[in-house]
C-alpha cells in the first residue's frame, strides 16, 4: 500500500469565497487549471498561470506563517486538479513533506494501521493541506482589502508577502 501516491490522487478544495481573489491573480482560461503562457500571464497582470500554483503558494504561506484556517461547511468549496498533476514535482513533494511534518501523524504508527485507517489519515492530510492553503488565502485577502495597491505597484509583491512574515 502507498501513502503519498494515494494522497496525490486526491483533489484538494478551496473556499468559493476566494474564487474572485484567485481570478484577480490567476489566469483561468482553458478550463480548471488554465493553460496560458508565462509571458501572456505577465502581460495580463497575472502572477499565476494555474489555480494549483496559487493554491500551492497559499499553502506554503499558511505553513510558513503557521496559520491554519478550517474550511467551514457554510460556504461552498471548490475542488480542482488532482495533486499528481501539479508541477513542479519537487515542490509538490516538498509541500507534502511539509504537511506531513506539521501534522501530528506518527510515521511508525501509520505503518501499523489498517487500510481503512490509512485512508482516513490520507483524508486528514488533504484536510490539513486545505486548511493551511485557506489560511494563506486569508492572508492574501486581508492584504488586498487593506491595501490593493500593494499588489498593483509592486512586481515583487508575492515574494515580499512571503518574506515579510
Amino acid at each position, binding site marked *: 500500500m502507498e501513502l503519498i501516491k494515494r494522497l496525490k490522487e486526491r483533489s484538494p478544495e478551496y473556499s468559493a469565497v476566494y474564487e474572485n481573489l484567485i481570478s484577480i491573480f490567476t489566469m483561468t482560461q482553458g478550463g480548471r487549471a488554465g493553460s496560458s503562457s508565462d509571458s501572456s*500571464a*505577465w502581460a495580463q497582470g497575472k502572477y499565476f498561470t494555474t489555480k494549483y500554483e496559487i493554491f500551492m503558494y497559499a499553502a506554503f504561506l499558511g505553513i510558513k506563517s503557521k496559520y491554519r484556517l478550517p474550511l467551514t461547511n457554510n460556504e461552498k468549496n471548490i475542488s480542482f486538479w488532482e495533486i499528481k498533476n501539479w508541477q*513542479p514535482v519537487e515542490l509538490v513533494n516538498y509541500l507534502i513533506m511539509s504537511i506531513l511534518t506539521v501534522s501530528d501523524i506518527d510515521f511508525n504508527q501509520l505503518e501499523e494501521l*489498517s487500510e481503512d485507517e490509512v485512508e482516513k489519515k490520507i483524508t486528514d492530510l488533504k484536510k490539513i493541506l486545505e486548511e493551511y492553503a485557506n489560511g494563506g488565502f486569508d492572508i492574501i485577502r486581508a492584504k488586498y482589502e487593506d491595501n490593493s495597491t500593494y499588489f498593483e505597484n509592486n512586481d515583487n509583491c508575492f515574494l515580499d508577502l512571503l518574506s515579510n512574515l
Partner: protein
Amino acid sequence: MIIEKIEIENFMCYSGYNIFEFCEGINVIIGDNAYGKSKLYDAFYWVLYDQIFVSERKEFVNTAIVGSELISDKVKYESVDGEVSASVSITFNNKEQDRVYVLRRTYTAKIEGGEVVKNNNKNSVLIVIDKEMSFLSGSLIDDENQKQLIINKILPRNLKRYLWFQGEQVESIIDFNDQGALTSAINVLSNMSYYETIVNIAKRTFDEVNNEYNKKLRNQSRDIEQSVKLDNQKKTAEQGHRNTKVYLDQTKENIARAEEKCELLFSKVADAEAISKFNQKIKKAQDELAELKKLLDNENSNFIRALFQKKWLLKGMNSIGKEYEEKFFRYDKNKLEKINKKQILSELTSGTIETRLPINVPEPIYVKEMLDKERCLVCGREAKKDSDAWKAIEELLITKKNTADSNVNDQIFKNNFREEFYMLYRNHISIEDNKMPFIEEEIKDSIICRRNLKIKIIDLQNIIIEQNEKIHEIIGDSSIDCKSAEHILNEYAVMRDKKELYILEKNKWERQIADYILKIEQLNTELGDLVKGEIPNYLIEKKKILSDFLDIATSTRDRVFNGLVSRLENEANVHYTSMTKGNQATRGKIRLKKLPNGNYMPEIIDDEGRVMLGYNTGNLILIKLATIMAIVSASSTDNKVKYYTLITDAPFSVFGDDYTIGFCKAVSMVYRQSIIMSKEFYKNEALKIQLMNDSDINIGRVYMIRPSSIECERDNRNNLSTIIESLN
C-alpha cells in the same frame, strides 16, 4: 493723406452702422481670431478696388464672385422681401492740399421670401466726393477715369502692395525668388526704365556704325571674294558667339536659381538636419526601448516563474525541512529498533548473532562500490577480493538484501511507507543542497537586473521626450516639420548637385565664347590685311565714340541700380535694427547679395561679413518687412510716401513680444499714419500697456473689437454684429 474715418454699414460681420475714427500715428484694432479684423481690412480694400481677400484661395476676388456674401448675415436673416445693402465709406483728408475725398461703395441684393435671389446684382457702386476742406459741400465725381485718378492719388498703384497688405501676403510681396520683385521695388525708388532706354539707344547706334564699318572693310578689299568668304565666316562666328552667350546666360540663370533655392533651403537645412538627427536618436532609442521592454517582460515573467521553477517559494522554509528530517530519522530509528529486535530474536534461535547497521546503511550502491574498489569506505582499510574483509563486506550486501526483503517488514508492520518517506527526505536534501543556498542571491540578482532595466527604460524614455521637445522647439521657431525635414535635406542635396553641374556647363560655354572671340579677332585681322587703302577716320572715330557711349550707358545703369540696392539695403538695416532692438538674440545685418543672373537675395551676415545661418521664420518675415519699409522710407526723399497710410492685417503673427513692439516702433518712424489689425495685444495686457505708453511709439486710436453673439447663438451668424470699443 490721412484716413479720418471708415464707416461700415451691414458689411459682412459689421451689421448695422459702425464707425472707426483714426488719427496720425499707429492706430491699432485688437481682436481675437474671427472677431472681424480681416473683415475691416476687406472693407478698406473693397472700397478702393472692389475686391476682398479670400484666405482659402489666398487671393483677392471681385464683388461679382462673392456677391451677397458681402452683406451681413444678420440683415439678410431679418429681411423677408425687398432689398438689402452693404456699404463702406472712407474719408481721406489731404491737409497739405486742403482736400477731402470721400469714397463710398455700396452693394445691393434682392431678398424674396427670406432668401437671397439667385443671379443677383453682380456690381457694386462707387461714389466719390471731392471737396475742399474749407467748404461744406463737395462735388460728386461721375467720370470713371476721374475716380481712378483720385484712387491712384490716395494710394499709387506702384506703392499699393507695400502699403496695404495682409500678414500672410508678406512672403509674396518681397519674393526674392521672383526675378522682378526687387526690380519692381527699385522702380518705386527710381525710374530705372529711363536708364534701360538709354542703354538700348546706345546698343542700336553702335550696331549701325559697326555695320557701316564692316561694309567699308569689304568694299575696300583686294580680294572681294575672299573678304566675303571671311565676312561670312565672321558672321557665323558672331552668331555662334551670340548663341553661346544666350546659353551661358541661361546656365547662369540656372546657377542663380539653384543658388537661390540652396540659399532658401540653407536657412532651413540646419533645422532640418537637427530634426533629422533628433529623429535618428529617437528611432535608435525607440529600438533600444522595445528591446529592453522585451527583456524586462521576459525578466518579469521569469521572476514569477522562478517562484516555482527555481523554488523561490521555499525561501525561509529551511526549518520545516529540518523538522521533517528529525521526524524521518525518529521514525527510521524506531523502525530499525523493531526490526533489530525481531532479527536478534531470530538469530538467537538460529545461533548466528551479528551486529547490524540500520537498514540500508550503508546503501547497497556504496557497498558495491567498496567491493569494486576492494576497500572499506568506512574505515579505509584494504579488502582484497575474496579476503575475509571483502567477504564480510559482501555478506553485508547479502544480509541487507535479505533484511530489505519485505518478508521481514511484512512480518512486523502492516504497511511499509519508508520508500515514500525516504523519497521525500531525498527531495528535501536535494533542494536543501542544490536550491536553498542560492535563493537569496538569485532573488537579489533578479531584482537588480530588473531595476537596472527599468532605469535604462526610464533613461531612454527621457531621451525620447527630450529629443521630441527639441524637435518641437525647432518646429515652433521655423516653418518646417518632421515630415518636411527629410524632404528639405534631399532637395538641398539635389540642388547642390545641380548647381555643380551647371557650373561645369557654364565653364564649357565660357570656353566656347573665348574660342569664338579668338576666331572673330583672327578673321578681323585677316579681313584687315585684305583692305587696300584706308578706312575713313570719321568712321573709326564714330565707331569708337559709340562703343564708349554703350559702355558708359551700361555702366551708368548698373551704377544707378547698385546705388539703389545699396540705399535699400541701408534703409532695410535701419528698420531691421529698430525692430530687433528689444530682442536679445543675435541680430546680424541684412545684405542684399547679387546673384549671377543679376537678381538679389537677402542674407544675414555678422560683423565680419560671414553669412549667419539658421535664422527662423520670424527672422525671415522681419527681413521682408524691413525691406518693405525700406522701399517706403528710401523713396521718401521727395516726401511723397509719407502721405500714404499703411494698412496691414496680422503682420506679426509669427513674432514674439519683442519683435512686435520693435515693429510698432519702426512703423512709427516710417509711416505718418498706420492702421494695424492684431490679436497679439488681445490677452497680453503687458504688451498692450507697452504699446499704448512707450514713448518711441506714436500711438493713434486703439480699438478692441469682439462679436456680439452670446453662447447659444454661436452656431450661425444670423444675429452676428461687431462690438467696437475705443480704448483711448
